[in-house]
């Protein structure tokens, strides 16, 4: 699946997007974040404060307990500050 990172999540990880292939036992957004944060210091830094992290599946906001199955695109970003 395609992963997108925005704002300081993007800066900490060091890339805007990538293809990720999480193990099959990763079912939810929360599990995916835990798995990603084990992929290196940059990921650990990006996912250090899980509580404030926002996620979108196929461009729709989701909670951390949402299932990632069937999603083609997941995005991680801090709370939005538009407007």
């Amino acid at each position, binding site marked *: 699946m395609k992963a997108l990172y*925005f704002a300081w999540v993007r800066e900490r990880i060091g890339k805007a997007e990538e293809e990720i292939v999480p193990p099959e036992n990763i079912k939810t957004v929360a599990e995916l974040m835990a798995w990603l944060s084990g992929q290196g210091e940059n990921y650990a830094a990006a996912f250090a404060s899980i509580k404030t992290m926002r996620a979108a599946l196929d*461009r729709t906001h989701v909670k951390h307990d949402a299932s990632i199955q069937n999603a083609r695109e997941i*995005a991680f970003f801090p*709370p939005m500050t*538009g407007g």
Partner: protein
Amino acid sequence: MAARLVVRVQTEGFDAAEEAARLTQGCTNIGALVSFTGLCRDEGGALAALEIEHYPGMAEAEIHRAALVAASRWPLEAVLAVHRYGLILPGEGIVLVITASQHRTEAFAAASFLMDYLKTEAPFWKKRHLAGKGAGDWVEAKPQDHAAARKWRG
């Protein structure tokens, strides 16, 4: 009754008057027009610019969804939301929301709702560029923005 609906995400600046004129052209049933412009403040000279990042595709979709909610919730004749991204200088507009309806209460409520929504749900992030210092910190989300957005929920 279908409201006219315009949503755009763009780097270019906008002209609020021109947008309002185009949005309401030929419409003779409008008694109230509310226009909200969100501007980049200079923070007492400390700010050189704001850099706005967005999630292409999702940003447009989220704003469009909010505009549809507004149009279904209040009897609007027309609604417009334009949000910029990229580098924005102090004094420049960041976001423009225009609502038009027969009566003022609905136009005010819809514009206010759209702004509260944009602040908390539309995928945009602001980074400060400080005068003489280059890129600085990311703007933090304000708890009161979430409180404002919550008040519209049934």
